């Protein structure tokens, strides 16, 4: 026998269920007067630095039907590639940008709309720069543990080609599942939960 490692175990996840809005976006589902606004609804203000972009994200099930009861959170660096987090030791992020947003999918169309800025590049563990990306976390009825993926940008071809994470994807045909298509200042991104076009999800 050796000494005990004496560690606790992580609380097991459970689905967010169909009524996730009550807790995370109460104003969105008609529960007014409890919080002044829904957390994560507005990401930028007039003083936020960087190029304004819009994200239009949908989540589709194994039949290609958009989920109308999912919730997406995004987490990203500021325009200079700095995170607004105590773990960011390289500098001070833009004080007018938290870098985190939350959006429930529209109950009719299934669309999530984020107004944010294009993130700068962040270093990988060995110092190489990763391509600009936004981290996504997706929960919904039927999803037992939140799904983690990344959104990269179609107009960053050169940076994407050098990205150490994208480089790890053995089946190159799956790389485009992580790349949002640019139209003007809008990026369109469909997350496929399963099937032929299944998005790459991470165990990170």
């Amino acid at each position, binding site marked *: 026998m050796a000494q005990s490692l004496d*560690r*606790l*175990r*992580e*609380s*097991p*996840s*459970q*689905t967010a*269920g*169909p*009524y*996730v809005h*009550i*807790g*995370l976006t109460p104003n969105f*589902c*008609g*529960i007014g*007067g*409890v*919080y002044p606004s829904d*957390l994560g609804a507005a990401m930028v203000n007039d003083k936020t630095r960087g190029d304004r972009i819009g994200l239009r994200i949908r989540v589709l*099930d*194994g*039949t290609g039907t958009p*989920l109308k*009861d999912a919730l997406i*959170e995004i*987490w990203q660096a500021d325009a200079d590639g700095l*995170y607004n*987090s*105590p*773990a*960011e030791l390289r500098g001070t*992020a833009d*004080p007018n940008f938290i870098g*985190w947003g939350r959006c429930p999918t529209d*109950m009719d169309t299934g669309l999530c709309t984020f107004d944010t800025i294009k993130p700068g590049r*962040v*270093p990988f563990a*060995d*110092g190489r720069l*990763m391509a600009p990306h936004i*981290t996504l*976390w997706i929960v919904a009825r*039927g*999803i*037992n*543990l*939140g799904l983690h993926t990344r959104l990269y940008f179609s107009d960053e071809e050169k940076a994407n080609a050098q990205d150490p*994470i994208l480089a790890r994807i053995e089946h190159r045909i799956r790389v485009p599942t992580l790349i949002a298509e640019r139209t003007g200042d809008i990026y369109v991104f469909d997350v496929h*939960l*399963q099937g032929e076009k*299944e998005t*790459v*999800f*991470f*165990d*990170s």
Partner: protein
Amino acid sequence: MPAESGSNRKPETGAFFQRDRTWHPPALTPNYKTSVLRSPQKALLALDNTLSEIAGPVFGHAMLGELDGDLIHNFARPGESAIGERIIIHGRVLDERGVGVPGALLEFWQANAGGRYRHKKDGYLAPLDPNFGGCGRAITSEDGGYAFRTVKPGPYPWPNGPNDWRPSHIHFSVFGHGFAQRLITQMYFEGDPLIWHCPIARGIPDKAAIETLIAALDMQSTIPFDARAYKFDIVLRGRRSSLFENRLEGN
């Protein structure tokens, strides 16, 4: 709004312990029918944490309203209160090293005492309580502690099997210090026989893991003639010391 650490401790920058995905419910749990078309079928891509996963948003106590932790009153008309069994839920948010997690944002939501949610998609015939909204939030103290007041939610039927009923439960959403710690789970109540019939709870393969989601009746924290208490601790992923991490050139 600048990030507030919620603590005087030096920020930690190590990667998180890997998740034990045999302890969590798998993506595909066919007895919970909606998971069938919403579960990835390809393997996840393993990724040791980068700064994108290690960093995460932190929320300051300043965002909390006075009644955010009081579901009995935060939606009630002046002088009125929600109907049901008055309870206090309290506990700590810890990480796998047993260390309290300060400044963690907890958000919770639940049905009312009759099992009815204030949501347009809930068509259950049990009535809404005009004084109950069903949402609340709290931020943990320096030692990771939190508490809130509410009424005990009722069980409710749901269209899964022909006669499936959810046990009484409260949904919890938790932010630690890094985005990779993000977790949503559900809290159940000690002694509820429905837990062992529930396809969602039983999607967790190990009975011992399910038991970690069952809050214990805590008579010592009960306020006599006011509210009973339940204790519910939550454990988030621990993290490696940054001494074990690669150092960047010149860092």
